[in-house]
């Protein structure tokens, strides 16, 4: 059985991978030839349209999104349970002025085992992207988080990527690789990553206002996840 959510794009190309390939849009260079096996979903956002998808992360998923000229794509994802799966989102900002955002808040519990990959390709000028990911890990949750903003040559663009994880259990684990691939000088692009737990200092303030430890803790975690 082939892994039904496998996608291979530019740097991850295997030599004979293309024979399963399906060219996802004729206007794109070979480099962006993707492999979409079963389970792949392609969404096109037509020029000047806004599309919003809300998703509950619950299963393996591959999403490929084309965003046309002046169009906006917003993706909101959340999870509040035990999840095992793989989640890939590839957003191609294909038209001038296209915008995309990914906003995720995860609350992983139990024996969650998740592999998340967010990639944004800036293929046209005046494109803007934003990725904001927040995750809380409890129990034995394990998350692999990868993200990448790629900007091609002669592109004027802006990209922002931020991922923060709160680790609330001794056995929770997180591995993260937030990458940038930039081949143009007219860009502003940044990314940030933080992994931490709730410190005694942070707990001190709500506790000094009369909350007990458990509620103070909850307050801080809820505050963290509120995007």
């Amino acid at each position, binding site marked *: 059985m082939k892994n039904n959510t496998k996608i291979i794009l530019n740097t991850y190309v295997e030599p004979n991978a293309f024979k399963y390939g399906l060219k996802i849009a004729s206007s794109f260079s070979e480099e962006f030839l993707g492999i979409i096996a079963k389970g792949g979903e392609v969404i096109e956002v037509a020029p000047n349209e806004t599309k919003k998808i809300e998703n509950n992360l619950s299963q393996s998923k591959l999403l490929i999104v084309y965003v046309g000229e002046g169009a906006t794509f917003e993706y909101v994802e959340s999870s509040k349970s035990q999840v095992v799966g793989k989640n890939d989102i590839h957003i191609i900002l294909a038209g001038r002025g296209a915008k995309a955002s990914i906003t995720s808040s995860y609350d992983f519990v139990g024996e969650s085992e998740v592999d998340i990959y967010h990639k944004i390709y800036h293929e046209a000028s005046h494109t803007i992207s934003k990725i904001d990911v927040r995750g809380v890990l409890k129990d034995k949750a394990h998350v692999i988080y990868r993200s990448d903003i790629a900007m091609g040559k002669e592109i004027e663009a802006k990209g922002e990527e931020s991922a923060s994880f709160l680790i609330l259990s001794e056995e929770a684990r997180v591995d993260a690789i937030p990458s940038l691939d930039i081949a143009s000088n007219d*860009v502003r692009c940044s990314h940030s990553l933080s992994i*931490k737990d709730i410190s005694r200092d942070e707990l001190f303030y709500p506790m000094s206002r009369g909350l007990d430890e458990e509620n103070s803790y909850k307050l801080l975690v809820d505050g963290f996840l509120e995007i």
Partner: protein
Amino acid sequence: MSIDEKLVNKGLSETLVRHISESKNEPSWMLKKRLEAFSLWKETLIPNWGPSLSGLNLDDLVYYIDPSVEETTDWKELPKEITDTFEKLGIPKAEREYLGGVGAQYDSGIVYHNLQKSLADKGVIFENMDVAVQKYPELVEKYFMTDCVPSSDHKFTMLHGAVWSGGTFIYVPKGVKVGLPLQAYFRMNRPSAGQFEHTLIIADEGSEIEYIEGCSAPRYTSSSLHAGCVEVFVMKGAKVKYLSIENWSRNTYNLNTKKAMVYEDGEMQWVNGNMGSCVTMLYPSSVLLGARAKADSLGIVLAGEGQNQDTGAKALHLAPDTVSTIRSKSVSKDGGISTYRGFVQIGKRATGAVSSVVCDALILDDKSVSNTYPSTKNDNKRVNISHEAKVGRLGDDEVFYLRSRGFSEREAERLIVGGFLEPIVKAMPLEYAIELNKLIELEMEGSVG
């Protein structure tokens, strides 16, 4: 050039490995080490990640040259192109006036070596690696390519383990603080030559040492390889600062391995400047083994035409309350590719570990590329890990401001790049800061505007 041509056979074979060991009159354990590394090297493939190494023909390299040059302090023996650069950089002056000791490596052997007497009296050892094997066999056998960088690490440490030659050995006894920085210069002066110097620094409990390595090579048409290895042992409470500016010629593959083992309360500081070579793969690593151990890594990279600078830093937190700080700054221009590739791992026992990584990249034109690939692996709850990266261009506003003050566009851009790299230049001792600033200026000449 006065180099004995008696052994310039290209390619690597067991006979050559035996010859190197024999001509250096090495003890049998070292020959055994070399042969083990060689047999591993034969079986291992070239790494398939990172920049392409396809231009590197391993069979066409000269792995060892017996230098017939006598001990010399004369910089004039170098080719004019390089002496000119040195003159501009003010190296001989800095060397004469400031530095505690200098070892210069001419092709594969060290030709000039000097250590201030006061240091020698305190028991500080600053030796050519080849000599150290003879003079301090117990120390070398214990630390040379064992725990820190075993030769089985990767393809190029295997190669290094088989054909290493020259380099520096430093031992600082317990509690001794070396006030002046020690320095060595490595150069390759032969086409298609490989350079495999080995640096081993052992800072015993409570000692302090600062070591500077400068590397450069004149340009030749066929490509050369530099696969050096730096091993540092920072014992309990010791402090080591390692600085290197690598300015190899533009046809050199610089595939270097640098690693430090840091014990309890130890402090390791890496400062690396990379501006030469065609492909650089360099990721100084710090293994934080003892509680409260600290590692600090500063790197600057200039990637110009035809250059692929793949650098970064690694920090492995294996003990409680360990701290790592990584700062990286890169400038890409004229089609150069600069990549930050880093790795931070927090182990189960590293409770209370703090790690901070900051990467800034400047892209000066539309042909150049900047990539950032920071990996983080965390297995602990009580940690504080942060990573930040920014990629951008020269601001029009900044250029405009400087131009309104009477600077030409080129001067303005040079000033901004200088300012961008300043935090790293500042971390260097004075004479090196001057060298680096001038190198940056030389690199920037005619590149922007």
